């Protein structure tokens, strides 16, 4: 029955001759495992397309909802976390597979005439894949994506002549915001996939036109049938890589940072590993030399890759024999440069907010938000005027949240005119700040740790009296020293002495004496908690 249906379809479309055309090819003798790298890249691209399709169904490209929609995918949607995991880790797999494929083609000299255009289309595809990675990074609208994109756009701005204009086009205006997200999303899901599809079709058509280059030294014997002999090898490699991708995505949940906070200029951007070398290079070319790192060197590398088949016009294909020895050395130098810069970049990565180190501010926020008689639940309850807190989304900016917590009836900050009597704040700004810090952690999917009463007291005290000047685990002011690892420098008695009377300890200092402002219990709780921060 199925056979007859297919026979009918063939008689009307001739699809069998097309399949035959696609599969019947004789490869040069000796073509083996090294020629499976391209299939792996193709499989990974397919995987990104399919998982991307699933994600696009839930993702919302607007700053107020992008983060929540990714959170929805990660937390509420059954196996949504795995779909995003496959897409997230698939990007890294794809970059690695594409580079391996490029190296294989280079080492075997497969780009030589008449395959120059095949090589060019391949280099373009690598650039498109990197553009995918770059645009995709912003989409979750978390701190990481937001600040890494800020850096990317600043790099574009540093380019000579039209830099300012280029940056403005990338942002869709003077600021990084909703318009930026819209165009990066559009590029990521429409422009780049279309470009990549065209390039892949061209690349494969060109490969078939010129045939596979085969081993460097022609092997004796009969050719290899593409199907099924070589396809079997391709299939084994694809299955192995796919299985590893599934394993990584299932074991390591794709990270999601806290929601983007444009007001937090102290956040230190961290690019994805494949851009780390570029990012690191920036540090060695400060000020007016910056374009060397952002334009000249990367431009030279890309130019070298694009020109390769036109420079290397000799007969020999062996990578270690003349005339190719110098080119191999040049490529090795680029590779080592990238590896060293990446390594230095990893070593230089700033200690960010550790999601498991809650410090004190979010703990104080948690204590305030969950305390008996807290006022949030008066409205945020089932059947009440606002949705219960479990389903409330953080779609507003920090200013709005702080104003709302101080004066919950004012839905828009600033709506009360100057003549109106100022309402008594329901929650002090200090407390509100702590609650916002807690909400951000919680919305990023981290559970509040259980703490001892003394740590809770320390947290509440810190949130009222210390947070303005001192930072712990990425939260708080920077006027005074960062206390994240203060326990290394001082013991509890030493810390207590500083809190009680800093001027006596240090002489000239901005820090007032807290002996009379805090209770002895508060000072003890702070000192013993801080001493434990090693």
């Amino acid at each position: 029955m199925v056979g007859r249906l297919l026979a009918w379809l063939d008689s009307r479309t001739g699809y069998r001759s097309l399949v035959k055309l696609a599969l019947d090819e004789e490869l040069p003798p000796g073509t083996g495992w090294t020629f499976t790298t391209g299939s792996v890249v193709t499989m990974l691209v397919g995987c990104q397309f399919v998982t991307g399709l699933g994600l696009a169904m839930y993702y919302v490209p607007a700053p107020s909802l992008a983060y929540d929609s990714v959170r929805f995918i990660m937390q509420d949607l059954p196996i949504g976390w795995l779909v995003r995991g496959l897409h997230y880790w698939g990007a890294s797999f794809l970059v690695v597979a594409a580079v391996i494929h490029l190296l294989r083609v280079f080492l075997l000299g497969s780009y030589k005439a008449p395959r120059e255009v095949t090589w060019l289309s391949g280099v373009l595809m690598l650039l498109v894949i990197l553009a995918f990675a770059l645009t995709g990074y912003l989409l979750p609208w978390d701190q990481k994506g937001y600040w890494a994109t800020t850096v990317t756009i600043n790099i574009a701005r540093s380019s000579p002549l039209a830099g300012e204009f280029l940056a403005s086009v990338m942002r869709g205006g003077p600021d990084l915001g909703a318009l930026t997200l819209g165009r990066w999303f559009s590029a990521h899901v429409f422009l780049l996939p279309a470009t990549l599809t065209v390039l892949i079709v061209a690349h494969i058509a060109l490969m078939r036109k010129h045939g596979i280059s085969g081993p460097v030294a022609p092997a004796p014997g009969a050719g290899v049938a593409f199907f099924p002999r070589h396809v079997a090898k391709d299939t084994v490699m694809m299955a192995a890589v796919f299985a590893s991708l599934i394993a990584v995505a299932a074991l390591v949940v794709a990270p999601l940072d806290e929601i983007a906070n444009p007001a937090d200029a102290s956040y230190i951007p961290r690019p994805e590993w494949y851009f780390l070398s570029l990012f690191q290079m920036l540090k060695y070319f400060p000020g007016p030399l910056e374009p060397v790192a952002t334009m000249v060197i990367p431009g030279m590398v890309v130019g070298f890759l694009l020109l390769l088949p036109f420079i290397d016009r000799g007969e020999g294909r062996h990578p270690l024999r003349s005339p190719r020895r110098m080119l191999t050395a040049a490529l090795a130098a680029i590779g080592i440069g990238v590896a060293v810069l990446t390594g230095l970049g990893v070593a230089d990565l700033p200690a960010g907010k550790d999601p498991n180190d809650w410090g004190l501010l979010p703990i104080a926020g948690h204590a305030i938000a969950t305390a008996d008689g807290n006022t949030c639940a008066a409205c945020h309850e089932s059947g009440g005027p606002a949705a219960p807190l479990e389903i409330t989304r953080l779609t507003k900016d920090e200013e709005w949240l702080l104003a709302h917590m101080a004066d919950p009836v004012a839905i828009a900050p600033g709506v009360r005119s100057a003549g109106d009597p100022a309402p008594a704040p329901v929650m002090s700004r200090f407390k509100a700040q702590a609650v916002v810090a807690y909400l951000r952690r919680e919305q990023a999917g981290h559970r509040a740790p259980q703490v001892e009463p003394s740590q809770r007291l320390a947290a509440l005290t810190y949130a009222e009296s210390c947070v303005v000047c001192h930072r712990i685990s990425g939260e708080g002011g920077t006027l005074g020293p960062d206390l994240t690892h203060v326990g290394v420098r001082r013991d509890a008695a030493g810390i207590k002495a500083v809190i009680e009377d800093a001027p006596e300890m240090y002489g000239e200092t901005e820090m007032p004496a807290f002996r009379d402002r805090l209770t002895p219990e508060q000072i003890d709780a702070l000192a013993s908690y801080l001493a434990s921060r090693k």
Partner: protein
Amino acid sequence: MSQQMSPVNSSNRRGFLVRVIQATHAAIGATLAFIVGGAVVAPSLGRRESQWLHAGDVTQLAEDVPMPVTLRIARPDGASEVVERRVVYLVRSGDRVRALDSTCTHLGCRTKFNAESMQIECPCHGGVYDSAGRVISGPPPAPLAAMATRIENDQIMVQV
């Protein structure tokens, strides 16, 4: 060692290889389809959770006079949240309280209680219900939907 095989043997081998290739590709495709398809279909399988909401006080209800109250039903809506407003009529007969959904059973317009005629009227196509939600005249095919209610210390709870 001879590379040669009998024609039968070699075509068997080829057939086996082809089947293994097909099976492997099918497995990769099926895994992806299961994961992505699962995420696509999953929300369609979820049920909306019902909840009990406070709707009013029994002592405020006059015998057999429908009182419209607005219930605020907050629920997650994908990545966002919505607070829906639904109007229900509370009707007390003796110590029994019923809650009627104000949505007309014809084509879904919002009905109104007319205190003069003591009838519930639909503005769209002239459907008329009595104070117990039964159809008196007009196109509505069924009485107004009743919702589950329960009374705790004179407080009326309605299930939505």
